[in-house]
């Protein structure tokens, strides 16, 4: 009898969960498209205290972020609408990404929160589902304005983060990933409830609370959270005090191109239609007895008649880059010629000096790191492109580097020796990259170099037509290079 009653309760709970999930609507949008929706315009106007059409809202200025407008997730549930945007700061911290969540109800009451997601494992894309896997912690900060110190109070925010374990094809993975509009089966939607408590003030969080933690395979399948509770299961944070507000509903938004960087290349190709032919022409010069190079700087627009400029060749047959150009570089391409420094051939991939020069340019603020693409074409018939994922990582590589040491400076000689050792390990030694090494082995060695030197870059192989790009990654467990075609 008791068992029967318990079963009924469980069944009712399952029905409630399904009912809750069925009532959630997820759709994708853009900031510009949302400006045509009065409900959103009202919400953002209340928060930003300025007209939404202005280039930057007061909210962004006060909290020091910029909304990325291209991708917005809109979640609707029981008359409430939750808009989730990815935001960006002037100095990006590679350890986390942030979202702005705007929560508005049918009578126009609006709140906004900053969600800081701290991955404990590298973010992995699941591109077919336009999603990604996330495992880590989340910290929520309510957006508030001009609260006097005396008015600060402990404020707890509970959020429900939507995940999905739906397979998108017969052979697709069912590993939980962040919910998107494609997760259309409520049986596969899972909620992770998390709570953060903070002393709220005008400048943001005072750090009194604790962030919640959740992972792709740790999501608690909570019941209808309409009543507002302090979190459940593995997703809960520590929540002193009670919270009577209903949870904020969201699904993380993260531009996958920050992982894949494929779009960085394709966008640049699309912006400069003549670039492809310039790269093809440059790649045809690898039989010269010296290196050749071209570049585009930030002054070039899509309308610039000839945005591609030539890099001068210096002594020893290597090209010499202006390290103090008037504009930041957005593209650099160069060849490794057949002769090489000793007339014995070439490196089939980027050299350590190539990396050091890019590092030096970042230190000088002369690279548009978000949009930068760097190419090398070699006499071995290889063609590679690289993009920057972590500017501060690559910036740290060159040491001491093109800097005027002040009198009395103390150098970190140990660091200098270690960088030198790592370069020697990767290049020149018998098992490393050298003029006679196998290009396929060189890819593997260079990918190890990226990891060991923490260069923070993505590497791509380019085909002869400069139409197809494959992202190259090293699977250390299987000691194998994984080549993933860029789909765009």
């Amino acid at each position, binding site marked *: 009898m008791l068992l029967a009653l318990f079963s009924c309760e469980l069944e009712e709970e399952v029905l409630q969960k399904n009912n809750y999930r069925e009532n959630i609507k997820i759709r994708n949008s853009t900031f510009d498209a949302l400006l045509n929706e009065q409900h959103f315009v009202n919400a953002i106007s209340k928060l930003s205290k300025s007209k939404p059409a202005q280039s930057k809202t007061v909210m962004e200025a006060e909290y020091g972020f910029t909304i990325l407008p291209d991708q917005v997730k809109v979640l609707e549930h029981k008359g409430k609408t939750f808009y989730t945007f990815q935001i960006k700061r002037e100095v990006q911290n590679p350890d986390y990404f942030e979202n702005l969540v705007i929560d508005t109800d049918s009578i126009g009451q609006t709140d906004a929160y900053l969600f800081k997601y701290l991955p404990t494992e590298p973010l992995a894309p699941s591109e077919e589902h336009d999603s990604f896997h996330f495992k880590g912690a989340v910290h929520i900060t309510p957006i508030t304005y001009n609260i006097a110190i005396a008015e600060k109070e402990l404020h707890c925010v509970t959020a429900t983060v939507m995940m999905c374990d739906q397979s998108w094809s017969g052979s697709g993975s069912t590993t939980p990933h962040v919910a998107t509009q494609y997760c259309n089966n409520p049986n596969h939607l899972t909620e992770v409830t998390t709570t953060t408590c903070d002393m709220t003030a005008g400048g943001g969080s005072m750090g009194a609370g604790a962030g919640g933690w959740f992972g792709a395979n740790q999501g608690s399948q909570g019941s209808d959270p309409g009543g507002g509770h302090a979190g459940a299961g593995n997703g809960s944070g520590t929540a002193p005090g009670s919270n009577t507000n209903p949870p904020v509903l969201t699904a993380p938004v993260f531009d996958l191109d920050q992982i894949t960087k494929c779009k960085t290349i394709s966008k640049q190709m699309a912006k400069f239609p003549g670039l492809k032919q310039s790269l093809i022409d440059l790649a045809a010069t690898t039989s010269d007895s010296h290196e050749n190079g071209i570049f585009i700087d930030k002054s070039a627009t899509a309308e610039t008649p000839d945005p591609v400029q030539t890099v001068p060749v210096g002594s020893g047959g290597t*090209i010499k880059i202006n390290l103090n150009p008037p504009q930041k570089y957005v593209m650099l391409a160069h060849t490794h010629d057949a002769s090489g420094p000793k007339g014995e051939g070439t490196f089939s991939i980027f050299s350590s000096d190539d990396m050091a020069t890019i590092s030096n340019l970042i230190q000088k603020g002369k690279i548009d790191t978000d949009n930068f693409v760097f190419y090398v074409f070699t006499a071995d018939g290889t063609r590679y492109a690289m993009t920057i994922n972590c500017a501060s990582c690559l910036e740290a590589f060159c040491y*001491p580097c093109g800097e005027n040491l*002040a009198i009395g400076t103390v150098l970190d000689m140990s660091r*200098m020796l270690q960088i030198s050792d790592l370069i*020697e390990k990767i290049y020149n030694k018998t098992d490393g990259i050298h003029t006679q090494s196998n290009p396929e082995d060189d890819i593997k060695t260079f990918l190890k170099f990226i990891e060991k030197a923490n260069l923070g870059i993505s590497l791509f192989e380019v085909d002869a037509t400069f139409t197809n790009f494959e992202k190259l990654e090293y699977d250390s467990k299987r000691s194998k290079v994984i080549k993933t075609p860029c789909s765009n």
Partner: protein
Amino acid sequence: MTLKGQKLLKHLVQTKNIHIMKKILYLFLLMFITTFSYSQQEKIEEIRQYYNPNFNTSPFYIYYYKDINNYFTPFIGTWIYQNGNQTFVMLFWKETKIGYPDTNPKYYVDELRGHYKLVQNYGQPNEQLIYTSQKNVGNSITSWPTIVMSNQPTEPYKMTGTIFDVAGVLNPSYPTGVRGELEMIINPANPNTAQWEVTLPMGMRGLDQPSTFTIPTNITLTKVNQ
């Protein structure tokens, strides 16, 4: 059972619990000491492994990459190249078990270190120094511990590595001078002579970056003492 008996039983149970807890504590302490000792264990590897990008290290060991095969020995000593009354002098010495405690995992390595100088009237009472690598790096107060780096020989009679040419006029923006790739090969038939070659590494450079060597780049060195 009387109240006294109950108290005694309670006391016995508490005492027993304390004993069990103590045993658990000792067990944990033993496990901790064992693990700690294990994690501190030193493992000697042949120096070739230090430069092997495919060599996988274990976080449980402190590695010591040692010159087990004495590849360093033929290089140690003073080598000279004479051109008129000027002599290029290269001195190599061995330092053992240099520690790098900030790395993960920590390691030690044997290093063949070196410094060069150019003198006039070498070995004469009127010997005059033209340049030397035994100085500070640029305007810093850090001296060069060695002017050759990553040059540990990993095969008989052959050494490759990095050398810094700091003999030219200092460009303050480039405190390490011109970085070169050094290859020194000892003639096995006459181990007192060696071919010395310095080349510019392949790669892109800055427009104002120095790339011309002042030190000799292609010479035959003669060993004058051990």
